[in-house]
């Protein structure tokens, strides 16, 4: 038995009423990649935050390299050689990469020398692990993939031996993810220990040596990866049988609901974001748009949802030219009324108001809906009733309509958005990254709902960076690269390599 890098014994942590962690036992072997999986809100982030000294455990002991330690704050964790890449990046957007990296480890009262050293050290790290980043780029302007590298560099720069990553791939494209894994493997070869939180079983099986499974704040299993298979893990994690295959019958699509002709979008700096987009979505079909993030999918969704004005080109919805419509209200509102629903890619930034209780988020975008009004005012009863309905339909947890959405786990937040948009019973559903950061239990559920919707004869335009998801859901698949549609193929005969090839075109990093 190799000696242990980390040992967690009887860790307990609760936030007010919520017991996030209930005496957790976990052992992490030196020089191994250790996976942690679990449903949304299972307690993974909390556990790791405790290990990193961000939160204090209510009870239990932490052993690092066999020594009992009290980690009162991140500083001490860093000193113990623990580094963490948070789920929500902890970077200062207005700083350069270099500034972010030296922050807290400047080496001296004056920045100059610190910066010089850092520059040198960074070069080495680049060589060692293939983590190329321009040290003088402003972090806010980098893509998520690069931002994550910065986070990793930050940890390594501080000489971390144990690297914790919380859902690193949730925000990454397949390519980026693969690159990340290559990095992690090199790290492992260098004798570093990696703890990886993820919702993606594929990843767990790919690169971890051991897996810990959490459910409802408890540790329900510690296994060696080679001893388990995918289904097994899934069941262990959700605590019931999950069906990973999306079974959907072949189905003849109906008439065209959405058709886009020569759509172009140019931004203020005259960068072409969308080039001559032509596409159609029929009733009763799911059209998937595959592509590396940042190749125009987001923009396409926003244009279709009426949040941006196209520069040129026409959009027809049920044969009606949206360009020629009169808009008394903002376009987005009008389109919603016409039956176009939109699940934004970034739920916490756009899809929700985290400070509002659930039931108020249930009408975001549908605030003009008369059915929840009593005279000029809203009827709170109606609102709560609607939210309860959503909670039931999408089993959102915790099932409290009054709770602030910000307190839900991302997974459950995502369900709230989906539930709201589907509840509006749209004819066209624009949906971006429906399962980002969502546990498989929920994924399975969401996928089934989408298929049901399709079978009910709705048109669905699905944007996702998860090839699996695209392939298992879509009837037709369009691939976007560099703002253009670089190819189309039928869902059933699409293969990852083929798609990957088409996506290859416009990687902007």
């Amino acid at each position, binding site marked *: 038995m190799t000696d242990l890098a980390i040992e967690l014994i009887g860790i307990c942590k609760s936030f007010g009423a919520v017991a996030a962690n209930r005496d957790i036992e976990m052992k992490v072997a030196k020089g191994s990649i250790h996976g942690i999986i679990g449903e949304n809100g299972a307690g993974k982030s909390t556990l790791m935050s405790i290990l990193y000294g961000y939160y204090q455990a209510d009870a239990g002991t932490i052993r690092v390299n066999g020594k009992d330690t009290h980690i009162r704050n991140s500083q001490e964790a860093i000193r113990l050689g623990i580094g963490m890449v948070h789920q929500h990046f*902890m970077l*200062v*957007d*207005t700083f350069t990469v270099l500034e972010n990296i*030296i*922050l*807290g*480890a400047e080496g001296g009262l004056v*920045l100059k020398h610190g910066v010089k050293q850092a520059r040198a050290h960074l070069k080495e790290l680049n060589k060692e692990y293939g983590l190329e980043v321009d040290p003088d780029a402003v972090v806010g302007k980098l893509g998520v993939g690069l931002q994550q590298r910065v986070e990793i560099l930050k940890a390594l720069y501080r000489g971390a031996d144990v690297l914790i990553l919380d859902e690193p791939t949730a925000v990454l494209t397949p390519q980026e993810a693969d690159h990340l894994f290559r990095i992690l493997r090199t790290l492992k070869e260098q004798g570093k220990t990696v703890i990886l939180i993820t919702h993606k079983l594929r990843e767990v099986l790919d690169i971890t040596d051991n897996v810990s499974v959490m459910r409802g704040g408890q540790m329900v299993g510690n296994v060696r990866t080679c001893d388990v298979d995918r289904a097994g893990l899934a069941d262990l994690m959700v605590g019931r049988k999950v069906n990973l295959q999306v079974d959907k019958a072949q189905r003849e699509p109906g008439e065209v609901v959405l058709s886009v002709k020569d759509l172009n979008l140019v931004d203020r700096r005259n960068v072409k974001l969308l080039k001559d987009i032509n596409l159609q979505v029929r009733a009763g079909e799911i059209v998937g748009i595959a592509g590396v993030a940042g190749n125009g999918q987001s923009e396409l969704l926003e244009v279709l949802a009426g949040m941006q004005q196209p520069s040129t080109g026409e959009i027809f919805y049920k044969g009606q030219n949206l360009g020629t419509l009169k808009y008394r209200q903002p376009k987005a509102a009008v389109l919603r009324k016409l039956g176009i629903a939109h699940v934004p890619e970034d739920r916490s930034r756009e899809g929700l108001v985290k400070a509002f209780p659930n039931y108020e988020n249930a009408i975001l975008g549908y605030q003009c809906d008369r059915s929840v009004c009593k005279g000029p005012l809203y009827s709170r009863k109606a609102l709560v009733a609607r939210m309860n309905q959503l909670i039931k339909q999408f089993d959102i947890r915790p099932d409290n309509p009054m709770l602030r959405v*910000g307190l839900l786990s991302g997974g459950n937040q995502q369900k709230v958005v989906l539930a709201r948009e589907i509840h509006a019973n749209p004819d066209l559903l624009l949906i971006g990254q429906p399962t980002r950061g969502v546990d498989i239990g929920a994924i399975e559920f969401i996928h089934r709902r989408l298929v049901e919707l399709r079978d009910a004869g709705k048109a669905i335009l699905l944007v996702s960076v998860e090839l699996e998801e695209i392939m298992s859901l879509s009837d037709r698949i369009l691939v976007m690269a560099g703002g253009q549609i670089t190819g189309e193929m039928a869902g059933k005969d699409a293969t990852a390599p083929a798609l990957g090839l088409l996506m290859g075109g416009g990687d902007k990093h």
Partner: protein
Amino acid sequence: MEQLISLLDSTIRVSTPLVLAALAGLFSERSGVVDIGLEGKMLTAAFASAAVAYATGNPWLGLLAGMFAATMLSMLHALVSVTYNGNQLISGMAVNTIASGITPVLGLAWFQQGGNSPQLDDVARFHEINLPFADSIANVPVIGQIYSGLLSGHCILVYLAFLVVLPLVTWTVYCSRFGLRLRAVGENPHAADTAGISVVRIRYLALLCNGMLCGMAGTFLSVYQTGSFIKEMTAGKGFLALAALIFGKWRPTYAVMGCLLFAFADAVQIRLEGVPLPFIGEIPSQFIQVIPYVLTVLLLAGFVGRAVAPKAIGIPFVKSR
């Protein structure tokens, strides 16, 4: 030429307290703590410095006292908004109100002059200091005039503000470790925290600097400009400084330019009053007096555009999303 020089001369004079206050505000706001309490801190400093200068007959002790008093209020502000995560705007208002309350109360108790301090005699005040050869080259055209008319003959605090404080602050904010951490804490305290930086400590330090600079600003008013403390003597300068800070998008040099702009407009305004303008004739003084404010608004609308505040400003740092 004379006119122009005297114009710029008074610009420098008037801007000095604004500059000091604005830079003070810069520290606290860059660290993510809103500070609408500049006014109050200046006022308290003005009082404390005048009182001590009067008692000891030494302006420098006055300065120290002023800086100390202002710092005390800064620490109060820190206690409320950093330690207790209270509302920073309320805290600022409290500081202002307490200041305009306590100064006359103490003043009355100590000097029986209705809350004002007695006139300081000359040794107890700061004075204009003449730079070497100011007089001898005074009538050399241009250079001489500028040197002796504009650069020479200011209070020591003026030189401190522009030649020491301003460069020092700029350097600190952009080139020092403290500056880096300061900006980080103001932009994304969580990031700073996970990087092992104590947000609380940085914010307290920021407010410490804030207090000391406010102290200098207040002292300038009472111990130099008027030679006595008079209640409510700050007359809104704290808010002008705040405006200048925002105007300068929380950057030292730009903020200072904002201050200079106010002061300049003010100086122009003073000289325009009662002077009949071509075509228009004489304008009512009130309309002359709005010039600085209107100018600011126009500039804001016209050129300055959107000012992006430090992201974390006004939000108490609490460990949870």
